[in-house]
C-alpha cells in the first residue's frame, strides 16, 4: 500500500514538474505584461516537437536537443511577444488574452499540420527507447523521473540566480513591478518584457522536452496542460514563483492519486472543484499575497 502510494507520488511529481513549469511561465508573463497566456501549454507541445525533430531528423542526442529546443523556445518567445502580445496589449489586457487564445488555434492545428495529429515518441534521456528502471523497496524508479525532477530543480535554481542575483534579472523585475519607475532609472522596459516572455516560453519548451519521453509529444494535450498549469498557479499563488512551482507539483500528485483508485475521468472535476474552492476560500493561493486578487 505504502509502496503504491510512493509510486503514485513519484509519478505525480514527474507530471507535476511539467505543470510547475507551465504555472511558472504563466506567472512570469502575467507579472511582466498583465496578460494570462492561454497558449502556454501549446508552447510545451511545440518544444517537445522541436526536440523530436532534432532527434529524429537531425539524429542528435536528446541531451543536445534539450538546450536546442530551449533556445528555440526563447527565440519563439521573442517573436510571440513582438507579434502577438505587444500589439494586442495596446488595446488592453482582455484583447491580449484573446490574442493568446488565437495563438492556441495557430499552434494546436499548426503542430498537427507539420507533425501530424498523433503524438510522437521522444527517447528517454538515459537508455533511448527503453528507460532505465531501478527498484528500491518495492518502488520502481525510472531514470527519466530522476531527470525530470532534477532538471526542474536546475531550471529553478537558474531562474532564481538570474532574477535575484544578476543586475539584469533585477532590472526585469523592476520593470514588471513598476514600469514607470523603471523607465525613469533607465531600464528598457519593452526589452525587459520581451525577455520575460521569452524566458517563459523557453521554460515551456524545456518542460515539453523533459516530460516528452514519458507523455509522448504532440496531439491536442496542450489545452489541458495550460489549464492544469493555471490550477497550479492559483493553488500556489499566482504572484508567487515558489507557490506556482509547488502548486503545479501538487496538481500533478493529486491527479495521480485520484486517477489510480477511481476512474480516469474523476480527476478533472475534483481538480477543478479544488480550483474553484481555492478561489473562494483563499484566492491569493497558498503563498500569494492578498493584494494581487483585486487588481
Amino acid at each position, binding site marked *: 500500500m505504502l509502496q503504491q502510494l510512493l509510486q503514485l507520488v513519484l509519478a505525480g511529481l514527474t507530471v507535476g514538474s511539467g505543470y510547475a513549469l507551465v504555472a511558472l511561465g504563466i506567472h512570469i508573463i*502575467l507579472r511582466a505584461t498583465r496578460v*494570462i497566456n*492561454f497558449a502556454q501549454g501549446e508552447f510545451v507541445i511545440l518544444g517537445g516537437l522541436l526536440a523530436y525533430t532534432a532527434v529524429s531528423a537531425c539524429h542528435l542526442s536528446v541531451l543536445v536537443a534539450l538546450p536546442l529546443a530551449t533556445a528555440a523556445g526563447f527565440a519563439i518567445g521573442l517573436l510571440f511577444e513582438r507579434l*502577438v502580445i505587444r*500589439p*494586442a496589449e495596446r*488595446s*488592453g*489586457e*482582455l*484583447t491580449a*488574452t*484573446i*490574442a493568446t*487564445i*488565437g*495563438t*492556441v*488555434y*495557430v*499552434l*494546436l*492545428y*499548426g503542430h*498537427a*499540420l507539420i507533425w*501530424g*495529429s498523433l503524438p510522437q515518441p521522444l527517447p528517454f534521456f538515459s537508455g533511448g527507447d527503453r528507460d532505465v528502471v531501478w527498484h528500491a523497496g518495492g518502488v520502481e524508479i525510472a531514470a527519466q523521473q530522476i531527470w525530470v525532477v532534477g532538471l526542474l530543480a536546475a531550471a529553478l535554481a537558474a531562474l532564481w540566480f538570474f532574477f535575484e542575483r544578476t543586475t539584469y534579472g533585477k532590472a526585469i523585475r523592476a520593470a514588471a513591478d513598476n514600469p514607470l519607475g523603471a523607465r525613469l532609472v533607465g531600464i528598457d522596459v519593452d526589452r525587459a518584457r520581451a525577455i520575460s516572455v521569452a524566458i517563459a516560453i523557453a521554460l515551456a519548451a524545456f518542460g515539453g522536452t523533459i516530460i516528452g519521453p514519458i507523455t509522448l509529444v504532440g*496531439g*491536442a494535450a496542450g*489545452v489541458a496542460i495550460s*489549464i492544469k498549469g*493555471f*490550477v497550479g498557479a*492559483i493553488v500556489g499563488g*499566482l504572484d508567487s514563483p515558489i507557490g506556482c512551482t509547488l502548486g503545479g507539483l501538487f496538481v500533478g500528485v493529486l491527479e495521480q492519486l485520484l486517477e489510480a483508485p477511481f476512474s480516469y*475521468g*474523476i480527476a*478533472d*472535476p475534483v481538480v*477543478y*472543484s479544488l*480550483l*474553484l474552492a481555492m*478561489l*473562494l476560500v483563499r*484566492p491569493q493561493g497558498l503563498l500569494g499575497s492578498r493584494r494581487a*486578487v*483585486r*487588481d
Partner: protein
Amino acid sequence: MSGRLRAEARLLWVIAGLVVLFGVVAARDATLLQAGTYAAIYAVAAIGLSILLGNVAQISVGQAGFFGIGAYTLGFLMTAATWPAWIPVWLEFLLATLLGTLLAAALGLLLGFIALRFRGHYLAMATLAFGLIAVGLFRESKALGGASGLDNIPFAQFGSLSISGGAAFWYAWGMVAVVVFLTANMLRGRTGRAFEALRNDELAAEVLGVPTRRAKIVAFTFAGALAGLAGTFYSSYLGVVDPNAVGVSLSIDLLLMVVVGGAGGVAGAILGAMLIGISNIYGHNLENWRPVIYGVAVIAIVIAFPRGLAGIILRGRPRSLPLLPSAPDAARVAAGPATPAPNEGATAPRLAVDNVSKRFGGLIAVDGVSFALETGRLTSLIGPNGAGKTTLFNLICGVGRVSSGRVTIAGRDVTGWEPHQIAALGVGRSFQNARLFGDMTVLENVVAGAYRLERTNLASDLLALPASRRSGRRALDCARAVLERLDLTRLANTYARDLAFGDRRRVELARALAADPLLMLVDEPAAGLNASERARLREDLLAIRADGVTVLLIEHDMRLVMQISDRVMVLEFGRLIADGAAGAVRADARVVAAYLGTAH
C-alpha cells in the same frame, strides 16, 4: 452599447436582410443551412456573453457550462423522462426548453454571486473552473450517458412540422429575433442605464443609487439563461449532446465570437457568431489548415480592430441616448424636476450623525462625531488635510462602514446600509476627483443621475412596457431640466471624458441634482477652479440651496465657505472642534490653531 443603439438598429436590419437572403438562397443546400442554423444557436449564447463582457465588463470563460445544462436538460427530458400522456409532444419540447433555460438561469444567478468576489484574471479563472466542473460532471453522470452523452434526441415537433433542416434554420433565427428584441429593450431601459453606469465607474454608479451588485448578478443570470436556451435548441436540432461538445473549447469559441464581433450590445455578437458559424462548416479536424488561418485571423482582428467587426461598422457614428422620447415634453421641462413626496422625513433632520467613529486598524480617522443638519441649509465641513472629512462623507453615504455610532437620514437609521440604498433615499454626492462616466455624454451622465427617480423593473424593461418607456422619458426630462438650469445644455452631447476640468465639476453637480436629492454631499468642488469658475460654482451652490436641498460641503476655499455657509463645522484629527455660524467659527482660537499652528 446603449449609446449606439440607433446605428446598431440599422445594422441589425441589414443583418436580418442577409439572414433572410441566406435562408432563401441556401434552401436546398443542407450543409449551408446547417452552418446558418449553428450560427443562430451560437448567436443566442453569444448575445448573453456580449452583454456581460461589453455592457457590464464582467468576463466569463464558462458559458459552455450553461449551454451544456440547457442541452442536457432538454436531451434528458426528451429521451429518458416519462411525460404524462395528456401533454402533447410540441408542449413537451417547449416545456423542456423552458426548464433548460430556467435551470441555466438559476446557475447563472449562482455564478453571479460567486463572481462578485473576483475581478479580472481571477474572475476569468473562477468562471473557467465553473465550466470545467460542469463538463466534468456531465462526463461522470451515468444518467446523462457519461462520456458518450445522450443521443436519439427527437426533433421538436409541431403537429406534422418537424423542426429540422430549413424549418430549424427559420426557427433558430426566429429565436435570435426574440432574444434581440428582449435584449435591446433591456439595454434601452433602466437596466441598461444601470449597466452603462456600472461599467464606467462602479463606485459613482453605486452612490447614484444603482445597485451594482444586483446589476452584475442580473447580467450573469441573463447570460446564463441565453446560453441555456441556445443549448436546449442545440441538442434538439443535432439529436445528440456529449461532454466534448459543451467543453472549454465552446466557452472559448463563444468568447472569441463576442470579441471578434464586438462586445457590447447584440449586433457584434451576431456578426461574430455568423463568422464562426461559417468557418465551422468544415469542422475542426486536426491536420486542417483552416483553424490555423482562423487563429491568425482572430489575432489580427483583435489587434487591428479591438472593438470588433461591429466596431468597424459603427465607428464614428454619433451616439444617441439610450432612450429618446418622440417629442420633448415642454410642459414637464418647464415644471422642473419632480418634487419629493411631501411627507418624506418632513420633521426629522435630513441628516443626523450620532457619535460616529471610524477606525482603520490603530488609526482613528473619525472620532465620535455628532451633528444634525437643519433642512434647507448649507453647512460647510472644513479642516486641515487628513482631518477625516472625506472619510465622514463615505460613512454617511455608505461607502465605508462606521466602526461605531449611528447615521440617520430623514429619520431613518441607515447605519450599515449599502450606498445605493442610501442614495435611493435622496442623498446625492460629488467626489473630490469628479467621477463622471467618461464613455457617456453629459446628457447620459445626468440621465444616469436620475436613476433613483425611475419607476420600472427588469420585466417591463425586457418587454418595453409603457412603464419602462415612461420611466426613461421621466429621467430624460429631469436631466434636460437640470442641464437647462445649470446652463449646461450646450454640452449635452459632449463626452464626459472630453470636458474641461471646470465643466466636469459642474456636470457632476448636475448629475447629483438630477436625482432631486434631499441632501447633497459636495466634496471640494472648488479645487482646481479658476476665479470665474469659482464665482460660477458659488451661484450654483446657492441655487441648489435655494431649491430647498440640504447641502453639506467640504471645501478649502475659505472665502467661498465664509460667503455661502449658514453654518461651519471644523474637523481636526477626526474630532469636531468647532461648530457654529461662519463668523464665530473664524474667530475661534482652536480653529486658528488647527489651521495655522500655535505659537509656543
